[in-house]
């Protein structure tokens, strides 16, 4: 393939599209790897299988998004090179996902805050003018539906249980709340994506939609949470030590055997 995808886009819009794809791919990649840390130690066997399978789904979504990104950027890097060959500072996931896996309540709270935001982002891409993304999003949404059902079931149970489960959930939400708004924090030049019909609304509007949705559920469950609006300049930078460690883990094989395939 010699022509890159989306040749009609002006460079500024193409850059914005690349950042959108990179942010989505890195989000899925990081939460996928982070949640896969539960494999073998989840609270019960059935949940172990469920969480591992969901983590695997996210890595699949990341792979598809990195592939699409590689075609749009067209700079000679393939999906694996983009996924594994960047330094910590080069990753563009939301800071919400910088928090460590923590205990089960941390994982459920993080996943709930992320999956609701991601769902709203995917909804806004369902009618995208960029056909390859629209087609991919149609597939991803069908899997994310189940992820949201699964995490909502857990959120309800932790929130409704008396004693330790609810206490742990409240502590987790306290830890995560300051960074919850980073997923839908505006990307640079996101309005050019709206103008080009790639996404149906600005990130400011998506963030507002997300707050309504999450606010309704939190109110029903008696979780009074303040979710501050994130600063777009730092929403996807200055990654944490927990991410530094995770990065060391998920790049280990690649660093040991550069270019290895299996």
């Amino acid at each position, binding site marked *: 393939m010699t022509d890159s995808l989306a040749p009609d886009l002006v460079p500024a819009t193409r850059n914005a599209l690349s950042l959108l794809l990179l942010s989505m791919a890195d989000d899925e990649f990081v939460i996928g790897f982070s949640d896969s840390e539960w494999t073998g130690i989840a609270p019960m066997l059935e949940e172990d*299988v469920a969480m591992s399978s969901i983590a695997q789904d996210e890595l699949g979504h990341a792979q598809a998004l990195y592939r699409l990104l590689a075609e749009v950027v067209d700079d000679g890097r393939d999906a694996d090179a983009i996924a594994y060959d960047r330094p910590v500072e080069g990753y563009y996931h939301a800071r919400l996902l910088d928090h460590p896996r923590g205990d089960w309540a941390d994982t459920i709270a993080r996943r709930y805050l992320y999956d609701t935001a991601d769902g709203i982002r995917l909804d806004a891409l369902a009618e995208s003018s960029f056909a390859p993304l629209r087609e991919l999003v149609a597939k991803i949404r069908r899997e994310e539906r189940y992820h949201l059902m699964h995490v909502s079931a857990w959120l309800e*149970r932790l929130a409704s249980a008396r004693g*330790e489960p609810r206490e742990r959930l409240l502590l987790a939400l306290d830890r995560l709340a300051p960074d919850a708004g980073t997923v839908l924090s505006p990307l640079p030049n996101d309005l050019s994506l709206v103008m080009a019909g790639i996404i149906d609304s600005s990130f400011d509007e998506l963030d507002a939609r997300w707050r309504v949705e999450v606010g309704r559920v939190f109110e029903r469950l008696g979780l009074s949470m303040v979710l501050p609006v994130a600063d777009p300049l730092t929403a996807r930078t200055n990654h944490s030590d927990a991410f530094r460690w995770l990065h060391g883990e998920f790049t280990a094989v690649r660093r040991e055997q550069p270019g290895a395939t299996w």
Partner: protein
Amino acid sequence: MTAEPQLEEWEVFRQEKEGDAMKHGGSVMAPDAELAVHYARELFGRRQESIRLWVVRRADIHDLSDPDLLQPPLDRSFKKPGGYVMRDKLAAAREQSGASKPKGNAG
């Protein structure tokens, strides 16, 4: 402290393709029906091997395994249709109606 969640067994039945009978796939442990369905999906459906699942609380299944009722000791072969030879009658009926013998496994 919180009481441990009460887990119980749920039996999972699966259908592989439209028209197939539901077959027992196995069981999962879960505290309630909603999570039981999620876990059934993970264990018996995540590789696209099923088009439908039924999840039943094991306690809701009425078990019958009494040998006096199911395997009575006296000869009951007269209750089976094996004693009747149909082949000649069928052949005669086919000849009469002009129909040919069905191919393959049918019949």
